[in-house]
């Protein structure tokens, strides 16, 4: 049945009274790839119910009367689902399709153009799970708008202190709020590795400021009708974050404010990545999202009744449990699934018509429909899409994703965080831009050369390296590996915390750490610049210009610039060298490698002092890279030959006393060369005297 068409007769309503909501059902990213290549994220089952149903049911039971779902990719599937599931509901659900939108901003501009929104509305994503009561919040928003005129948006946050399981790095954010009227003053995603810089004007302008790092962005925004035109006016707004930033920056010009509502009792979270998928699934199974639980009347459709028993075990009809299998805790099993004997399952969701073999161990496993798992398999913290076949004895660990119809051969063990898909990429496969795929012939860790797949091939899905800046975040965010890396990151931070501890009188509230990271970042940028210089054949002058601008951007002293540029220039040939066998290394360090950057080095290394810095920097680098030590003399010789380093500087450096083991080693290494230098000098002296 097609969705109800209401366009044209909206005049029948009293327009202000209709509560409207916009659901952006496209995520505009590929966090769930490769599963999302043939199925939109909003139809991904979460505890055996498609995510979009949670979202819509949330809106429906919150009292929203008219909902617009905005879809880009896989629109037909979403449409079909809405028609099937939502055509009979009280809430009027309309699907808006636009294939060519690339961001949430585009989507909102598109909706503005359709002019379907008439009053304050709720803006959410199509992957939201929540049981927040919206009506009082909308009332509050309206009341505040009447009182102050300036508010355009109320954003909902949920209290979730650091370490909370529904916090993911992607959503790590710090906000500052003025407690008296809950106005948002400052909003920043906590980018990893950087300390938060809070502008002091904030404190001078607003006497009282609450700084929150204990919040989870629910991605529920109650918007006034101005929001859409604001998106239309400003084409730079790609996401809601951009919008928030724009409003905050231009507060004085535009006179708009954003307000914040912090909820503590109710539940709201977005299935924004695999980690959140895991966390939210567990929350649903342990009933934090009540009344939206698998056994609840709100979610279950007439053809699948679900029972709830002790330890949060949810079973649909016709589930066959063999004798001796244990369902430990937080398990949901779909219709028609068979579980073999002696299998142990905990914290997992299994879809309908699956067959789980004997003696299988499932923990934090999310198995969709029609999946076959062979005997003696172990599957932990992984997601298996429809129709996956896992043969006997397979081990699938931490963060693997197996897309539709992947088949894994007997006794294979998958590396953590492997993502496999069964189909080769097609030409019009534009949902996952730049993905790289390759063939796997044998199991990856076990020695025996078994086929992963005996029916065809599995392709490993990898995010392409040059995709965009998100890649870095993503690798840190890999499901299952996250916790460890998070700990490490924390340690790193603290290690740099109090380095200069003896004189902490001068150490003003953690001012000492940014310096270290800035020079690191500078170095990274320099190396990046040089790499690009080679790749794109950029002229030296331009590289120098770029390095100089970097110097200003990071506020690096000239002395340090000299040292870091030296390191940067050496870095590239060193990287190549590390891959080579030792005997080739000495040969490879040739004039040719350096030729490109010699002018650059000359530009910075001019006077005696900078030369000394350059030498010290090389010495320092030697201690970190043993490869460099092997070619140390040759390197210095070359720098001497090319007149970067003067003789006097080398001898001065050689004669400076050092206690450091590395320094001594360097000097020993260079000994013959210095001797040669001195002899040469004597000769030339003799020449002159002649």
């Amino acid at each position, binding site marked *: 049945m097609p969705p109800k068409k209401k366009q044209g007769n909206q005049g029948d309503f009293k327009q202000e009274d209709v509560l409207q909501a916009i659901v952006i059902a496209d995520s505009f990213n590929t966090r769930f790839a490769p599963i999302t290549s043939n199925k939109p994220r909003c139809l991904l089952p979460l505890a055996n119910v498609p995510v979009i149903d949670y979202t819509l049911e949330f809106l429906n039971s919150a009292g929203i009367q008219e909902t617009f779902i905005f879809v880009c990719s896989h629109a037909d599937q979403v449409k079909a689902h809405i028609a099937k599931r939502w055509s009979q509901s009280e809430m009027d659900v309309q699907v808006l399709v636009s294939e060519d939108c690339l961001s949430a901003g585009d989507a909102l501009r598109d909706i503005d153009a359709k002019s379907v929104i008439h009053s304050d509305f709720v803006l959410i994503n199509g992957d939201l799970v929540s049981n927040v009561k919206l009506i009082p919040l909308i009332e509050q928003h309206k009341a505040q708008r009447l009182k102050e005129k300036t508010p355009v948006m109320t954003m909902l946050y949920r209290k979730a202190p650091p370490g909370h399981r529904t916090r993911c790095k992607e959503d790590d954010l710090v906000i500052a709020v003025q407690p008296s009227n809950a106005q948002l003053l400052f909003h920043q995603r906590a980018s990893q590795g950087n300390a938060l810089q*809070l502008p002091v004007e904030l404190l001078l302008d607003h006497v*009282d*400021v609450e700084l929150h790092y204990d919040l989870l962005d629910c991605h529920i925004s109650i918007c006034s009708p101005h929001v859409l035109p604001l998106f239309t006016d400003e084409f730079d707004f790609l996401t809601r974050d951009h919008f928030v930033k724009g409003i905050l920056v231009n507060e004085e010009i535009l006179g708009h404010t954003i307000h914040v509502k912090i909820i503590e009792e109710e539940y709201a979270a977005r299935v924004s990545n695999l980690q959140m998928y895991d966390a939210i699934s567990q929350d649903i199974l342990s009933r934090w999202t009540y009344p939206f639980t698998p056994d609840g009347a709100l979610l279950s459709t007439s053809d699948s009744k679900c029972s709830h028993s002790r330890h949060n075990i949810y079973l649909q009809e016709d589930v066959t449990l063999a004798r001796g299998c244990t369902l430990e805790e937080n398990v949901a099993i779909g219709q028609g699934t068979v579980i073999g004997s002696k299998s142990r399952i905990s914290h997992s969701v299994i879809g309908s018509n699956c067959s789980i073999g004997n003696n299988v161990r499932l923990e934090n496993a999310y198995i969709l429909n029609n999946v076959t798992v062979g005997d003696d398999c172990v599957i932990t913290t992984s997601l298996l899409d429809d129709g996956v076949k896992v043969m006997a004895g397979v081990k699938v660990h931490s963060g693997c994703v197996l897309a539709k119809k992947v088949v894994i051969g007997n006794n294979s063990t998958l590396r953590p965080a492997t993502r496999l898909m069964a189909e080769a990429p097609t030409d019009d496969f534009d949902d996952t831009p730049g993905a790289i795929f390759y063939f796997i012939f044998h199991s990856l860790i076990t020695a025996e050369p078994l086929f992963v797949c005996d029916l065809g091939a599995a392709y490993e899905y990898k995010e392409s390296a040059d995709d965009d800046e998100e890649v870095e975040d993503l690798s840190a965010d890999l499901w299952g590996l996250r916790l460890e890396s998070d700990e490490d990151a*924390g340690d790193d931070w603290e290690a740099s*915390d109090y380095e200069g*501890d003896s004189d902490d009188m001068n150490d003003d509230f953690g001012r000492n750490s940014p310096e270290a990271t800035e020079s690191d970042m500078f170095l990274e940028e320099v190396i990046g610049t040089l790499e690009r210089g080679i790749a794109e054949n950029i002229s030296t002058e331009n590289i120098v210009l770029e390095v100089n601008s970097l110097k200003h951007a990071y506020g690096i002293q000239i002395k340090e610039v000299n040292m870091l540029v030296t390191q940067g220039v050496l870095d590239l040939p060193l990287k190549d060298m590390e891959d080579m066998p030792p005997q080739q290394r000495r040969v490879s360090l040739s004039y040719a490698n350096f030729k490109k950057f010699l002018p650059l080095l000359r530009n910075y290394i001019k006077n005696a002092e900078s030369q000394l810095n350059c030498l010290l920097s090389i010495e320092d680098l030697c201690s970190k890279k043993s490869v460099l030590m092997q070619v140390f003399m040759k390197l210095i010789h070359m720098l001497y030959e090319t007149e970067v380093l003067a003789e006097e500087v080398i001898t001065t450096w050689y004669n400076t006393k050092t206690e450091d083991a590395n320094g001594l080693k360097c000097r020993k290494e260079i000994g013959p060369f210095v001797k040669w230098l001195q002899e040469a000098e004597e000769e030339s002296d003799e020449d002159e005297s002649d």
Partner: protein
Amino acid sequence: MEFQAIIMAAGRGSRMSDLTSCMPKALLPVANRPLVWYPVNMLETSGFSEATIVVCETDLQSILKTLEQICDVKIKLHFVSIPYEEDWGTLDSLRHIADQIKSDLLVVSCDLICSVQLHQMADLHRTRDAALTMLLAPSPDVSEASVPGGKANRKVEHDVVGLSPDNRLLFISSEADLEQTLTFKHSFLKKFPMVRLKNRVMDAHLYFMKRSLLDHACDGALSTSTTIKGEFIPHLVRRQFRRRHCAKDQDQSLNMTADVRQDGGENEDGFSRLVQEYSTHPNDSASMRDCFHGDRMKCYAIMVKDELCVRVNTLVSYCEANRQMAKELARVGVLDEPLVAPSVQIPSKSTVGADSLMAEGSSVGERSGIKRSVIGKHCVIGDHVKITNCIIMNHVTIEEGSTLSGTVVCSEARLGAKCELKDCLVTGGQSVIGKSTNEVIVNLEQLMEVE
């Protein structure tokens, strides 16, 4: 209480030198009581039986005399005098008396007038095992107040603080010292995910401290610091976040107290060990580690809400304090004192407002009016004098027909007939005639001396 109370009364009052040039700051009259009486009284009403009071050697006699003879203080006071010449800061004074201090201490400045219940603060200090607990108050809003000597005197120094929801003091800085941005490290935010930053806060200069902090103050690293507020407190607040292993060497002194505690435990019998094991008292090092993140040194701060809290350290706060205290003496425990001393005869045609104080021995002439003012002892006020919003100290003579408003008149001054003073400050022993607005009237000779 187990705390040893120390009153810092050696301040020079350098922020209001016009007032303090003729009288020690501690003895400036506020609602006809010397300033130092207020902290002494606060300690007395909170149950302290003795206190140490640090005064400047030049002021020792006058303060001693005032407190013991005139104010009838029951608390036992130990006077410690510090040399005038060397210009010691509060931390210097504290170091000076360090060996006389045997227990945890309460340090309070002589210029604090406050009605906060000390035992509440002490409780917080004890339960949290705090190294430092301090009192904060919202900065007084003086933008509208009239100040003698013009607007220049109206500047107030603000502090900016960061507090966690459980009142941990995470950050303190004076507003003037702030740079462009405040930096918060990630590890800090992780430990303290909610920080309330408050601007326009005043440090009330009331500190509960652990004894061990004194050893720390005598330590080499802090030897150049002189003041408690300016240097010691910010140092302690930063020190909270020092990582344990690198803090080891310098924390010897702090370790010592912890060791003593543990040694004590070992000698006890099995039963008390069990008690310690099951106790959640924070002295038990293991049990509270998580909630205090293993921090050894913890600073707390209490924000004054409804209680009275005024610091008299500038001319404007001095005026405000007088105005406020004339109405609210009851809040610091003075209940039964009449506003106008019984000995004062007020002629029937003159009025003294219910918001004014008059001390004994003063007299008012015919048809005079006094409103919102404080009149000291033995003042002579002539006929037809109008006094509004003024502070008149002792032994002042105001001759007939004068009109004063918003003015401070120091002791033994003499205002001639038909003076008109608005927002002025008349220093001690001056004779004034004529009209003045927004002026500080100083004896030139005296000025030369000061310079």
